[in-house]
């Protein structure tokens, strides 16, 4: 009994697994249904419709969220417009204080939000505890600091003429969040928008609307009413209503290429700016010298390859193409496959589990389809390749085995983002061959380079056409390191001070301090 009470206190079962949200003893309370968060209040959807929200861990619904319509987007825009003047005129100190308070509130609820995020998305709680939520906290702090350091520039055009440049907020912006990091990607978008003095209307991804609403519960009393508004529902209806609205001054989006084009098309119709992050097919390149010694660095490099399974491969920058130098391929892959074979899969709320459930039945279906086409194309399955059969409550969850397929770069499994724990591996002969294969892709979001030779690493990093080249590391996302794509991977840079420019207008005051007329008339 004493043990059970102790267990209930930290939200875990006696086996050390977090109790599922909504169950007795869980850290996470779940209401039967959730409304939209508009103007600081919980507002029922105009049409009174709700949709089931499924946990990928079980494949079963655990709550409902608003199935909103265009009318609800208008309500959110009303609230944002009502708030925009006061928030836009707030001092930098006031804005930073709000962002810091948001960070503190998330940190104070870190474990609760980590469990909620894991249950919502299917990702292992060890990742949300160590990465998603702490990074979200830091992101708000980064932009709280960034906003305090904002400086306009002035230029002395001549001795009596000065050009002053001020940052001004855009006003009300729309932001559309992906399902793979529902809270962290929300933080990436919301923090800079608010830091720059904007009010926002956020549309979470259709499969993952709930954890953001849990976040809203935590920060509802901190953010002034109307500054942050969240509307849930189907993308085809409210995503479109938001992105095409003439009442937004900017649209930010993360997702796939076709919706990215549609977002830019809607932005063009309204002549407003857009930033879009659209995914990748990131090469992770291992030169033979990584095996010169059997040491900590080699251990790190092996983990670097296995990181394709991070967040079950549902990452825009998933290192899903491993390029391994031919001369060490067998020796290196033997070590990597051994590591992959020891990945534990199961209930994402078990802190010892390394890989959880794919986000949806659709994703699982897509991954299965890609393995099928890889086999048709002649790729060799080195490990995995099937759905993972799990028992009990998890029997209907969306689990897929960590998979590695060997083939060549022309295969579709090397050219398309699978968004699952499927690694496509191939070999290269030398530096030039590595660069050729790395750049033979439509995408250019991320890349990894592993070598003990600093000069080679630098040359590779500069030669790869991608916005982020991790060098002797992978999947680090510290605030302050710019993130965004080359080629069809998107437009804009997040996660950095320069995001403030994406969310600001430049006001130039051109002032003459001379009494002399021009003399034309």
């Amino acid at each position, binding site marked *: 009994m004493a043990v059970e009470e102790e267990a209930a206190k930290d939200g875990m079962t006696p086996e050390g697994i977090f109790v599922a949200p909504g169950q007795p003893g869980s850290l996470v309370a779940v209401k039967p249904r959730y409304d939209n968060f508009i103007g600081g209040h919980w507002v029922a959807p105009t049409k009174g419709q709700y949709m089931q929200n499924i946990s990928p861990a079980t494949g079963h619904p655990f709550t409902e969220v608003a199935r909103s319509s265009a009318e609800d987007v208008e309500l959110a825009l009303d609230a944002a417009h009502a708030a925009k003047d006061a928030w836009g005129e707030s001092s930098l100190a006031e804005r930073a204080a709000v962002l810091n308070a948001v960070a503190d509130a998330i940190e104070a609820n870190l474990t609760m939000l980590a469990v909620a995020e894991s249950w919502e998305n299917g990702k292992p709680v060890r990742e949300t505890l160590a990465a998603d939520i702490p990074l979200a906290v830091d992101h708000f702090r980064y932009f709280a600091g960034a906003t305090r350091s904002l400086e306009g520039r002035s230029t002395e055009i001549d001795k009596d003429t000065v050009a002053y440049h001020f940052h001004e907020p855009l006003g009300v912006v729309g932001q559309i969040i992906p399902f793979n990091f529902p809270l962290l990607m929300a933080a990436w978008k919301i923090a800079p928008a608010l830091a720059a003095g904007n009010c926002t209307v956020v549309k979470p991804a259709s499969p993952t609307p709930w954890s953001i609403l849990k976040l809203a519960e935590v920060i509802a009393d901190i953010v002034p009413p109307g500054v942050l508004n969240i509307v849930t529902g189907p993308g085809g209806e409210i995503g479109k209503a938001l992105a095409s609205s003439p009442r937004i001054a900017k649209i930010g989006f993360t997702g796939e290429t*076709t919706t990215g084009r549609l977002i830019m098309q809607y932005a063009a119709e309204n002549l407003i700016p857009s930033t879009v992050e659209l995914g990748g097919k990131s090469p992770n390149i291992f030169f033979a010298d990584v095996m010169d010694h059997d040491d900590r660095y080699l251990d790190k490099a092996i983990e670097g390859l296995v990181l394709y399974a991070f967040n079950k491969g549902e990452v825009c920058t998933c290192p899903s193409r491993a390029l391994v130098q031919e001369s060490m391929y067998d020796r290196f892959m033997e070590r990597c496959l051994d590591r992959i074979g020891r990945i534990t899969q199961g209930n994402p709320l078990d802190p010892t589990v390394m890989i959880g459930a794919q986000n949806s039945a659709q994703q699982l279906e897509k991954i299965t389809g890609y393995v099928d086409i890889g086999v048709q194309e002649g790729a060799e399955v080195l490990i995995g390749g099937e759905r993972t059969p799990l028992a009990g409550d998890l029997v209907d969850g969306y689990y897929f085995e960590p998979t590695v397929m060997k083939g060549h770069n022309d295969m*579709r499994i090397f050219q398309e983002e699978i968004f699952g724990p499927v690694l496509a591996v191939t070999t290269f002969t030398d530096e030039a061959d590595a660069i050729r294969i790395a750049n033979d892709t439509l995408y250019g979001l991320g890349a990894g380079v592993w070598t003990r030779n600093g000069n080679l690493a630098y040359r590779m990093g500069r030669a790869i056409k991608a916005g982020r080249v991790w060098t002797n590391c992978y999947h680090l996302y510290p605030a302050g390191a710019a993130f965004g794509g080359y080629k069809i991977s998107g437009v804009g840079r997040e996660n950095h001070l320069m995001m403030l420019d994406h969310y600001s207008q430049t006001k130039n005051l051109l002032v003459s301090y001379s009494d002399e007329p021009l003399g034309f008339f």
Partner: protein
Amino acid sequence: MTEASSGMEATVARVVATPAALGAIEHLTADVGPIMFFQSGGCCDGSLPMCFHDGEFVIGSHDVRLGSVGSSPFFIDHRQFEAWKHTQLILDVGVGDPEGFSLAAGEGRHFITRSRVLTEQEQAALEGTGPGARG
């Protein structure tokens, strides 16, 4: 019509649709009017076909028209076409709501793309038809 509806009768079709997809297209067009498909790529819902009201998505001069499914045109980005052209796309219907801004394939259903690697003869025959209709 057990498996395919093709806009390119002369050779093998680059895109076909299953009976389930053809049924969904028929219901959808009766419900909302003409529709179009665009094969997506990239992050999240990447390899799903996006279904829109016809004309909702502006087709650029470089986009490739792979063919028709039922009465609806099916397009793909020209760069993606180069990477995908050795496969035949098979439009089908899956369980679950659509993602992105796509129209649903019926209540709680979405369109999906399956693929089949074309035989060498089929690929050669398609190569002979030129680079694919643009725009």
